[in-house]
């Protein structure tokens, strides 16, 4: 079925997460007409809070967000699951979760807002590994700051705690107070190791900001901040709508049309939930649909003109899949109680392994001391040890106070063999194939993870830890990236330094899918900064025109 109605705007954006909505907001404020097509529905916070409270499995980040059938997302991180099919030697390590709905995956993130290091953009030049990005840190610096202001990022005083990414302005908000658990951990690291614990930059209010309240430390940033103290893409959606951008929910884009020369995109087509087709024309198009869905859309749009998919003359669409695949351990400290689980989930990081000459041999990483509530784990452990009655209660109390959870973000490298393809067997109700991903952890990352395990063992020893529980194999960090990789050479990359596709002059991609390498910091701030740079380019071209 096809609809008569043709929609049109200066800029058509696919995806309403942090990337799509922030571009829409910037453009709408400049008087440019914008249509944003979001595959998922409109949603609101209160229903997620209730879903979270109804959930038995509290640590399930996807749990409160049961997807709609026309825009499915992975229901959990299990293999196999009903949507994202992974294969290869490290299939389990690529079970990424994300959300398809208005506002995007930042409905459940921990608010970690790292800038990348200058070296992260020049891995090839500096260390002979991976690739260089087609831009430098300095190119992105103003947009990093713009993104920090947009989201409301708090962070340490750069004069006191230099995180290695040069700043022209201080953070928009002061750092968070340090939790008791974090204080204990900091003291230990400072006294007994050559390393340091830094305050992680956070897109979280430490004062009223942007009409939203100050963080109260509910400790469930993931899966849902109950009070709106943490940034999520829905705020940018609201702001963009107030500025005049049009958002269309439940609009599942399945085709990208090009002109006869295959140089310019002319329209996109989407299905509504009843599979009526609609066409949207525009001057510029931005795909901002998450790393996995963006690659999927480009591949699904294959036709006679582009048999391998849109923007894919290089053959690199869907390749070079990366993540911060890491390792994770929990153990019971034999030292003083830490009482984790008060304050935000992730605020304290050992950053000594983010950069060094050894990056020519093994990947960088950062270590999170995860400050989440450990009562679940403590209860399981106490029961498994056979405690009952009052002893059980005491043990739960003791273990919950002494549990330490550590995980790492380890750097991956772009390997074309790590590849997203369209499922030949599984399709959604609209007939659109599910994504399949083959994943083999690069040797560079394996070495990095080995190093991390050594550091974790050292920390367990220092804290006289017992009852170690290592997550088997590797731990997916939900930071998928690389599927439309950035580069200067159109034969081995998909977009240029401005995130414009090499193949189509008016098609941009705003997503972690453009990352050339993945560094170690959480990816969202870099996604937002790249998106704001896309908005800047579009504004210049549209206003100049």
């Amino acid at each position, binding site marked *: 079925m096809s609809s008569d109605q043709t929609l049109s705007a200066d800029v058509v954006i696919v995806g309403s997460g942090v990337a799509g909505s*922030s571009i829409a*907001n*910037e453009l709408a*404020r400049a008087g440019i007409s914008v249509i944003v097509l979001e595959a*998922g*529905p*409109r*949603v*609101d*916070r*209160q*229903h*997620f*809070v*209730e*879903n979270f*409270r*109804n*959930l038995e499995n509290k640590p399930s980040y996807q*749990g*409160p*967000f*049961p*997807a*709609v059938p026309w825009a499915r997302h992975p229901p959990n991180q299990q293999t196999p699951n009903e949507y994202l099919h992974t294969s290869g030697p490290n299939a389990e390590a690529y079970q990424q979760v994300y959300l398809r*709905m208005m506002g995007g995956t930042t409905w459940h993130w921990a608010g970690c807002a790292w800038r990348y290091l200058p070296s992260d953009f020049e891995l090839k030049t500096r260390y002979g590994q991976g690739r260089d990005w087609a831009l430098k840190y300095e190119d992105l610096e*103003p*947009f990093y*700051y*713009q993104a920090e*202001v*947009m989201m*409301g990022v708090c962070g340490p005083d750069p004069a006191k705690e230099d995180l290695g990414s040069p700043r022209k*302005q*201080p953070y*928009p908000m002061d750092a968070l107070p340090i939790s008791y658990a974090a204080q204990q951990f900091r003291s230990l690291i400072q006294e007994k190791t050559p390393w340091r614990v830094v305050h992680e930059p956070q897109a979280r209010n430490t*004062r*009223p*900001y*942007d*009409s*939203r*309240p*100050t963080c*109260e430390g*509910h400790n469930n940033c993931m899966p849902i901040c*109950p*009070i*709106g103290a943490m940034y999520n893409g*829905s*705020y*940018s959606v*609201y*702001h963009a709508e*107030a500025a005049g951008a049009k958002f269309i929910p*439940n609009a599942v884009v399945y085709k990208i049309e090009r002109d006869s020369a295959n140089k310019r995109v002319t329209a996109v087509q989407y299905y509504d939930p009843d599979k009526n087709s609609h066409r949207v024309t525009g001057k510029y198009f931005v795909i901002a649909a998450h790393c996995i869905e963006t690659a999927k859309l480009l591949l699904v749009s294959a036709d006679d003109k582009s048999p391998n998919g849109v923007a894919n003359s290089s053959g690199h669409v869907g390749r070079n899949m990366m993540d911060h695949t890491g390792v994770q351990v929990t153990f019971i400290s034999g030292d003083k109680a830490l009482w984790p689980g008060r304050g935000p989930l992730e605020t304290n990081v050992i950053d000594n392994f983010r950069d060094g000459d050894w990056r020519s041999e093994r990947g960088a990483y950062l270590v999170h001391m995860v400050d989440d509530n450990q009562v679940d784990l403590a209860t399981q452990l106490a029961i498994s040890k056979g405690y009952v009655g009052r002893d059980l209660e005491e043990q739960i109390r003791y273990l919950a106070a002494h549990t330490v959870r550590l995980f790492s973000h380890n750097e991956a490298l772009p390997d074309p063999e790590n590849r997203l393809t369209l499922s030949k067997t599984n399709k959604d109700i609209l007939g659109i194939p599910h994504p399949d991903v083959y994943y083999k952890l690069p040797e560079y990352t394996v070495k990095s993870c080995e190093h991390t395990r050594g550091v974790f063992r050292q920390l367990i020893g220092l804290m006289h830890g017992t009852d170690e529980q290592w997550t088997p194999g590797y731990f997916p960090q939900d930071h998928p990236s690389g599927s439309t990789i950035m580069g200067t050479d159109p034969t081995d990359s998909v977009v240029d330094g401005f995130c414009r596709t090499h193949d189509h002059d008016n098609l941009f991609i705003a997503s972690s899918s453009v990352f050339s390498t993945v560094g170690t910091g959480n990816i969202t701030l870099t996604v937002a900064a790249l998106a*704001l740079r896309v*908005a*800047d380019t579009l504004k210049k071209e549209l206003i100049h025109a």
Partner: protein
Amino acid sequence: MLDFRKTLSALLVSSALSVGALSCEAIAAHAQNAAPAATPTPEATSTPAPTSAPVATQAAQPVASPSATGTNPAVTPAANGMASAQSDAAVMERGAYIATAADCVACHTKLGGQPFAGGLKIATPMGDVVSTNITPDADHGIGKYTEQEFEQAVRHGVRRDGAYLYPVMPYVSYAGMTDQDVHALYVWFMHGVKPIATAPKPTELTFPANVRSAMAAWNFVTTKEQPESGDSATYDPLRRGKYLANALEHCGTCHTPRNFMLSEKQDRYLAGGPLSGWYAPNITSSKTAGIGNWSEDDLVAYLQTGHAKARAQAAGPMGEAVEHSTSRLTDKDLHALAAYILQVPAMEDDLEHKPRESFGHAVDLPDLRDKVPTRIDDLSEMDGAHLYDANCAACHSRNGAGTRDQYAPSLFNNTTVGSARPDNLIMTILHGVNRQTAAGHAGMPAFDGHSDVQRLSDSEIAKLVTYIMTTFGSGDPHVTADQVSHFRKNF
């Protein structure tokens, strides 16, 4: 006559608000002015200029040093016998303090605007009354006013050109100011305030409200404060308290109900009245309908911080009054003001027969955990308990007790919830709380149609108000979605 009354009513109600309650914009404006680390507007956070940090607006503070006094020839301290004994610095200091106590900045500063440069729109059904520039700029402000002309405006509502001011300007109260304080206020405005060379767009009301001369008739019949005399700083505490309450803070402007001519009903002094959505409660010494059970310290804490534990907290126009004015009074003045208010003759109320703060106790939410998660597109409306659980319990706690430090206050022993009138609870849910004092910031997000946190429908708010007041307060207020809609649209 009927039309005239309606018009006047609108104007008076506006004035009663001491501004701002009419639009959340205004509330935000003042919050910004006061909070050095103010929240940026969405514009500020989302407009690109990568160089633009969220810049806090400067607090309305004197810009000139007191030594600047005397540079304006129009000022003749010697003309005032009492003032002549004072040093210039002391006059300036007094003027600044009087301006704070009279809360001039509240009305005469617009959202994000320069202090006292005017431009705040006060919405009325007859059009917007726009506050004027009262900085000492000669062309755009009051720089050409002589002290006598200034006095005529402040105490009698007459402009330099002879036109009548709308009584949005509380000259009926300011009429009680002493000569010495008017003089000090004049000196400070001329020398302590930075001149701003812009004039807001003038007020344009529709007929008959645009007939300023009509105000002459109203001025004739309305009750005005009698001018005090002598040095107000030397008054005994009770007289000082009365002076603060009536001539400066103009408490009665909001808290005293109005008669058929919309003048304050002096026989119902401070007995409470509605004002554009909010309800300024009975603050007489009645132990049933007023605040007769409050101690002086309770009231001082309230005026100083906007919060008296297990009693009340200030939001809306009172939040602004606390932020800009009462929180900046000296301890001595606060005690004088509180002591005076607490001895105001008791007035009873038609609806409230039990102290508002006496209602309620902790009540745990029922067990709501009977459902599996709903699909993300299921936005179906929840019942009151679920709405409370999802939107309120995170801060006010499952049992309504609030946070341990009462940053989020308890909902029982809370005048907003214990009132027989749901008005202030509805308004608080719609517009939130944003109050900054030296004691810190108090904030609750808005849940109206512009909220980034959660946008609640009329019906959801009605259910929530019903749940909260029935569970923790004075009982079922029978609030309907239509009522909430009225508050949302009109206030």
